[in-house]
């Protein structure tokens, strides 16, 4: 996930809020040519605010999924227009999530703490965000481990394959979530405890204000001229 992070992230709550707003706004425009203007505008905005690399890393997988789903829609409906619209909606996911994905989760957690959000929310974000990359790494390790026990990925050994992959994966998931919960708790994190300091405070800057204004202006512009 670190590969998506930007050097100067936007204020986390602004990123979070605009990710949702842009997605909803884009869905509203999904059948209009204006969606393309929104994409172009966002690309320029992200370039200006150092998020272009994140967008470019996000686009290929989403474009691929969009192509696959879009092709399916084309085949079932026999019309290319709904297929293009589906493709656009899936690309919208990449565009709308860019500022959020570019923000290190620790910034979001610290803002939650600064604003006094319930700790259970922070705990959820914390464990989910840590869990995904950990799980991917675990799956790679299990595949390696299977090879070392002489198990091949083949139809003949499908029962052993099931045991060799699924059992360790399930056990690891349970084990990891237990260990992580224990780790968090033994380091003093408690949902009941309200007092918590913030090591590096995240402040709303002029840059964040300009970003907010420009995003709003972009959406208004797309609505008027699109």
């Amino acid at each position, binding site marked *: 996930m670190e590969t998506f992070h930007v050097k100067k992230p936007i204020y986390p709550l602004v990123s979070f809020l605009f990710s949702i707003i842009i997605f909803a706004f884009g869905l509203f425009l999904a059948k209009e040519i204006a969606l393309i203007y929104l994409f172009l505008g966002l690309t320029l905005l992200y370039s200006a605010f150092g998020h272009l690399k994140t967008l470019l890393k996000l686009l290929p997988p989403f474009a691929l999924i969009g192509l696959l789903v879009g092709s399916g829609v084309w085949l079932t409906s026999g019309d290319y227009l709904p297929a293009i619209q589906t493709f656009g909606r899936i690309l919208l996911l990449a565009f709308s999530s860019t500022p959020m994905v570019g923000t290190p989760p620790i910034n979001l957690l610290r803002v939650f703490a600064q604003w006094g959000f319930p700790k259970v929310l922070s705990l959820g974000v914390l464990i989910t965000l840590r869990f995904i990359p950990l799980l991917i790494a675990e799956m790679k390790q299990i595949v390696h481990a299977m090879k070392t026990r*002489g198990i091949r990925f083949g139809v003949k050994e499908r029962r052993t394959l099931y045991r060799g992959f699924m059992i360790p994966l399930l056990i690891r998931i349970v084990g990891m979530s237990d260990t*992580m919960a224990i*780790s968090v708790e033994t*380091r*003093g994190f408690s949902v009941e405890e309200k007092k918590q300091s913030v090591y590096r*405070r995240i402040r709303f800057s002029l840059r964040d204000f300009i970003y907010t204004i420009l995003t709003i202006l972009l959406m208004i512009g797309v609505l008027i001229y699109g």
Partner: protein
Amino acid sequence: MDKIKGFAKKSSAIELCNLSFRFANESPPVLKNINLTLQYGEIMVLGGLSGEGKSTLVSMISGILPHMMGGIAEGQVHLDGQDVTNLKPGERSRYLGSVLQNAENQIIHQKVEDELAFGCENRNFSPEIIEEEIHEKAGLLHLNLSSQTRKLSGGEMQRVITAAILCMKQRILLFDEPFAHLDFDGMKTLLSLLNRLKNKGYAILIVEHRIEEIFDQVDRTAWLEQGNLEVFEEKKEILKHLPVFQTYRRTGQFLNPLIVFQNVTMELDRHEALNDVDLTLYHGERLMILGDNGSGKTTLLKVMGRLLKPTGGRVCVKGINEKEWFNQVGMIFQNPNYQLFMPTVYEEIALKGKGEKLIREIIEAFQLKELLDRHPQSLSEGQKRRLTIAAVMAMDPEIVLLDEPTVGQDGRGLEMIAEYLLKQNREKQITIVTATHDQRWAKSMADRILWIKDGSVYKVGNAALGDNFFRQTEKNRE
């Protein structure tokens, strides 16, 4: 204790009164009437065989058992004179810092700096104190605060978790195998740090298998066996429980190349994990890979075992059928949990076992007879590792690659494994490659030493080079 400068306490740091534990009503007790007192200004080491309940005791003190993981507990736990029996781990963390096993799964944040700050933030320290603490502890444990935690080696992760706990400034510290993944230098650094903390009045309880290596630095010792705790009057009494580890050195030349590395490089996450490695592994030899944490030992083993394809250079293999590679090359991971998946210990060994005779021989040699019907995941970490090695050896491999085989292993278990591997090496000429930080294993199980530094071959030599390695790392520290 009152003489300790800056920290005078009347109450004991840890006091356990008639502590017993069982996982369920019908299951046998894991701990039986444990009584233990640890004073401020003391370091105590707790030893015992694998699976005898050491980690259970640690979990009882930190409150993980029974509050988070269930089970039936009796007796009382006092920390700093307070009865904390009914307090959850989060509440106990006001008194107690716990460094548990499996550091890699305990890391939550992406940057070392944030990981170290996490506990301090939870304890409501001011940003200035957090800054001071994390810089001090990172410096002491040789950590780079801007490093990405995901890219760290096992030993480096262990140091991060240790530093994260030390930053929280509790006066009672609990360590469950803190040296397991640390290199020699890391171990000595941590030991010296713990001694400084002890002199400041901290109480420290360490669960460890490598007792010989830390013996001089501890004040008291205790031994846990079959759920009973024996706290020794004289600390040296623990030594009677530790087997004398034999040295199996030999001289001789190995002539038949098995695997040849030519200018091998390996890039992982834009980091050069291996750099221009030239190496020949010979049939029948015992090669020991030594190096600091993060020097590339595990990566080298994985390239050797064909789990990773090098990004540069060539690896040539002689005399092993490529299709049969994973049946002839056995690899033991640092973490045994990945390699165990069958419903019973017997089925695990028999899965790829070559014949009932060999399977029986291995069960006997690794003393697994009592555990045959158990689920592999229900075993202790040390027992799991023994089982993984047994299951791989049942494949009758030509090459065995071992990554930190001694972690979680008591002295007897270690000797058992060493004896079996050496017998196979003598009788069947199997090739053994080990990456380890364990001085006992390194000194005893090597024909040749490969010393790697920052992903490159630094020195190659006979077993005496191992002595130099450990001497030099100690000297560097001094």
